[in-house]
């Protein structure tokens, strides 16, 4: 199944946000004491696992985690400048042409409520739009459906259902 999504224009946040601008620019973030990264360079895997554990995501084997990140199409992570602590993360996989799936969107609970989740999503989506991908999907736990909806995500469009293989052997 594939949607014939209309690709918005290519300028940074255009098409991703309603205003066409990021909700917080890099300068805004820096003033607030954060920096944004978009490569795995300098990404500390132990910190990433620690971040995952803070939101009850499973801990990941580091070798596998590295392999996953190396085979991830786009990623964004936010670091607190003062402590160099990793406090936000999101990534997307796909075929680099037609679709992308967003995974592992995480903000440290101690830093939630600052709009950083939105920052992560906006930048990740802008990166995907730059690649020409507008067929973007994700799997949302019930508690965060409301987080994605204002960004333009629609659950079960046209009756489409997310399914996962369940090994019950």
């Amino acid at each position: 199944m594939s949607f014939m999504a209309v690709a918005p224009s290519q300028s940074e946040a255009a098409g991703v946000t309603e205003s066409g601008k990021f909700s917080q620019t890099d300068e805004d973030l820096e003033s607030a004491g954060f920096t944004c990264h978009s490569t795995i360079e300098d990404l500390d895997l132990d910190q990433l696992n620690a971040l995952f554990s803070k939101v009850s995501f499973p801990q990941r084997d580091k070798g596998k985690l590295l392999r996953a990140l190396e085979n991830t199409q786009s990623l964004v992570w936010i670091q607190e400048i003062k402590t160099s602590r990793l406090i936000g993360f999101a990534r997307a996989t796909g075929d680099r042409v037609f679709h992308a799936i967003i995974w592992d969107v995480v903000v440290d609970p101690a830093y939630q409520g600052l709009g950083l989740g939105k920052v992560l999503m906006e930048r990740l989506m802008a990166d995907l739009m730059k690649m020409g991908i507008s067929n973007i999907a994700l799997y949302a736990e019930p508690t965060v459906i409301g987080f994605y909806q204002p960004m333009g995500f629609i659950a079960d469009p046209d009756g489409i259902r997310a399914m996962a293989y369940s090994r019950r052997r």
Partner: protein
Amino acid sequence: MASALAPPCAVAPLRCRKLNCVYSSGKPHSSSSASSIAPFSVLRNAPLFARVEIVRGNGKRNMVVQAQAGFLKLLDGHALNLDRSDEYRIGARKTILTASYKFPRNDSPMSVQLERRDVQARSLWDSIRSGFGLNNSPTAVIDTTEIGFKEDVELEDEREVVLVEKVHDDGTVEKIVFASGVEVDVYELEILCDKVGWPKRPPSKVAAALRNSYMVASLHLYKQVPSTDGEDPVVEKRELIGMARATSDHAFNATIWDVLVDPLYQGQGLGKALVEQMIRALLRRDIGNITLFADAQVVDFYKGLGFEADPDGIKGMFWYPRY
């Protein structure tokens, strides 16, 4: 249940790995060992089975048998019945492949020939070349052959599985083969997408999408016509009749896309087989989370294959979808 006996896999170019034996309740076939696709010799009413034991370098053993549903038995040291297709996962780092066969007590001896197939020096599978049978009280193992291969060679190779085989009266053999490593021709795919009524996509983009997919699984129809002078049969035609692909981060998650089967070949369970084999291939590579998005009308199809909709209430969400 009478069905044609599936000959063992032919030599290259098919590169078949695992044998799909089907049980024959008809007359025994005579083996013609000269040909590379000799049918199996089989005893009347004797089921066929194969036991493949993988011995890992550290001495740990895992049993692996890939069985055609309903027809093979799995032996793990105790006789046990397998009434559906089953597979045991292989861990990584296989080093020794041991194959053993059990022969019936009272019947004429049958020869066993193991063939080693090396493809790109990566891995090793044997084709089981002749027939053998087992009655319910197995005898001692008659022959074992150990084949070692290099350390660190993982048995997560590309797989080719013969799903359907038809031998026609004129000797023509048609096979439908699942493969997860055979390259899919973009133009053949375009023809196939046309047949199922999918919108056209630029071939260059499709080629890139396939290249960037973690796994591209295909169903090909091979048609072989026997040559008259006793040489290997000539592969006359190869047609793409099904495809599915998965994107993945190569470690944790995989998402299946674009599952399609040529309408002419639908209704035979090929779509099911395609997805099933793909799942196995993904599980073999240790991908723990296999996901997909299902149109409303195929949700039940995937449920039948072991998928759960909205697991734990998790919802699939799409960004501004257009139809």
